[in-house]
């Protein structure tokens, strides 16, 4: 593709310049054996909500870091709001705002001062800044606590205040790194509502998440990333079509103690032959595969480890059209000499797509 140049003439000649252009981005941190970001390219249009979906350590924050001038890439090109962000970071910073993964509010200031000083850093002051701060504090339900020092704020309030702060200088693109990680369900719904509302008013959003529901709920387009690479890119519906079927049936089985000759491989083959089945995978083998680069999740308890049960095997079946035949599948399991431990029916999610692409879960 032809990248937009950052000269004013080119900008005028090409009115539909994208909000973000990333070309062949590579980042290797010093003393690291592998690239944290390993050749990622994408474009975000103005007005779009674009998501980077991937597990911890996939390179999402690093990508956001480069786009927001906070990380210097090893190779690649980045344009933000038509500005070459690597060559002219100061100009790029005018048009962007960042809601980071961890709370970075100014704890020496009150909530309202956090907004006012942020505006002042962007050259906005006086009545204009005060009015905007008050209206954003109201919009984010913080007007009662506006005079509080922010070290007394809960996680949800801090997150709301950081979004309000980001909006003070009317950015063209808002970056949000894991905007709801660690929030309780109610706070998360509130943030989702606010983000939808901002986008409805025309603000472009780039967010990262390791939560497939968040990606599906908010994003027009999602890039699935793992180990610094982009595995797939498309709307949630397009991505879900990459799975072998649109319905799923998850079967957890255990070898029947009376039977000794039964093999999981044989069962998988028989399940695959059921009518309407378009794909079948054995999940436990892939779920236990090592993530490799994933560090410990920050600000969040790790998910409960699956019970160590060597006899337990999980199969995932895909099918089209009608819901899959639970009864038939259950019969095949018991005929093959296995106990059915758990059975779950569902529609394909982005997590299924991720598992299909990588052989691992998102967490």
């Amino acid at each position: 593709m032809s990248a937009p140049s950052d000269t004013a003439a080119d900008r005028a000649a090409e009115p539909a310049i994208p909000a973000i252009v990333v070309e062949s981005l590579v980042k290797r941190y010093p003393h690291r054996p592998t690239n944290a970001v390993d050749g990622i390219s994408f474009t975000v249009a103005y007005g779009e909500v674009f998501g980077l979906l991937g597990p911890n350590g996939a390179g999402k924050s690093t990508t956001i870091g480069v786009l927001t001038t906070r990380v210097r890439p090893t190779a690649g090109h980045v344009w933000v709001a038509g500005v070459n962000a690597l060559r002219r970071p100061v100009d790029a910073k005018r048009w962007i705002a960042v809601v980071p993964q961890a709370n970075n509010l100014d704890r020496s200031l009150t909530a309202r001062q956090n907004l006012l000083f942020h505006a002042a850093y962007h050259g906005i002051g006086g009545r204009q800044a005060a009015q905007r701060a008050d209206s954003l504090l109201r919009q984010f339900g913080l007007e009662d606590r506006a005079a509080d020092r922010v070290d007394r704020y809960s996680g949800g309030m801090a997150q709301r205040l950081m979004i309000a702060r980001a909006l003070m200088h009317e950015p063209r693109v808002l970056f949000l790194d894991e905007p709801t990680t660690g929030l309780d369900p109610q706070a998360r719904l509130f943030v989702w509502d606010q983000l939808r509302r901002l986008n409805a008013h025309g603000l472009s959003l780039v967010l990262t998440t390791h939560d497939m529901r968040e990606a599906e709920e908010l994003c027009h387009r999602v890039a699935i990333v793992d180990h610094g690479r982009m595995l797939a890119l498309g709307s949630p519906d397009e991505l879900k079509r990459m799975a072998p079927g649109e319905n799923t049936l998850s079967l957890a089985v255990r070898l029947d103690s009376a039977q000794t000759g039964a093999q999981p491989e044989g069962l998988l083959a028989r399940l695959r032959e059921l009518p309407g089945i378009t794909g079948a995978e054995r999940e436990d083998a892939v779920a236990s595969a090592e993530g490799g680069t994933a560090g410990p999740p920050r600000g969040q308890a790790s998910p409960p480890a699956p019970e160590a049960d060597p006899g337990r095997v999980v199969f995932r079946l895909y099918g089209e059209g009608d819901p899959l035949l639970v009864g038939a599948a259950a019969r095949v399991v018991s005929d093959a000499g296995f106990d059915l431990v758990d059975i779950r029916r569902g529609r394909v999610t982005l997590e299924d797509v991720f598992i299909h692409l990588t052989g691992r879960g998102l967490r």
Partner: protein
Amino acid sequence: MTAASPVPARNLRWAALTALFRRDIVVTGRELWAFLAQVLLQPLATLFIFGRVLPGIGMASPQYARILMPGILVLTIVLTALQSTAMPLVIDFGWTKEIEDRLLAPLPVAWVALEKVLFAAARGMVAGAMMIGLGIVVVGAHSVSLTAANLGAVAAYAVLAALVGGSVGLTLGTLVQPQQLNMMFALILTPMLFTGCTQYPWASLNHLRWFQLLTLLNPITYASEGMRAVMMPGLNHLNAVYVLPALGAAIAGFGWIGMRGFARRAVG
């Protein structure tokens, strides 16, 4: 949502820089008494014991308060400026990340570092001015040796001392990890406190040659000697021909290392 920023790009940097200063003024103003107690109590106690009590009980010469005063003044200025850059930077970069919002302001990140140094230097100057006032109270105006004639030179050395403190603080603030803060105090600040020729003139160490040479490694030595030379011209001092270039080199050297450290911490 695409309302153009009302300020032209070039002015925007200055507007941002001004806002950084205003932020630090507001934060310092809010904790003014804590700040002053923190930076003045220790030098004040030193001045009281060595400049008033010891001469009073005959264990030091009455002259000593006059010799001590310029050194205590410099020490107050340097350490205040040093801590005003080092402490917030160690904590911000290592832990709270508060500085990120300022790094995302539309100005070069080096300017954020520059603001830190300049504001820290200003804090050092304020602490120095307070110290002069307190010195007059504790050891008497006759021992403070500040006159209309040397006021300009005293102010000039105060500025140099403040910039030395600010740039050494910038270096420490970007090199030290939060868990090493205690070590920094024990292994860097305490030796600086005692090897800076603040409690004794450099020339008086002639008979303790190795220690005299050691003090030359401490930039505070040059600030103390310069300050004492203008406040007590009658004594022997390190010549200004050495003092001024040494102070300039300390500011430039630590400023440069600190700026590089800052850039590395600010942009990964």
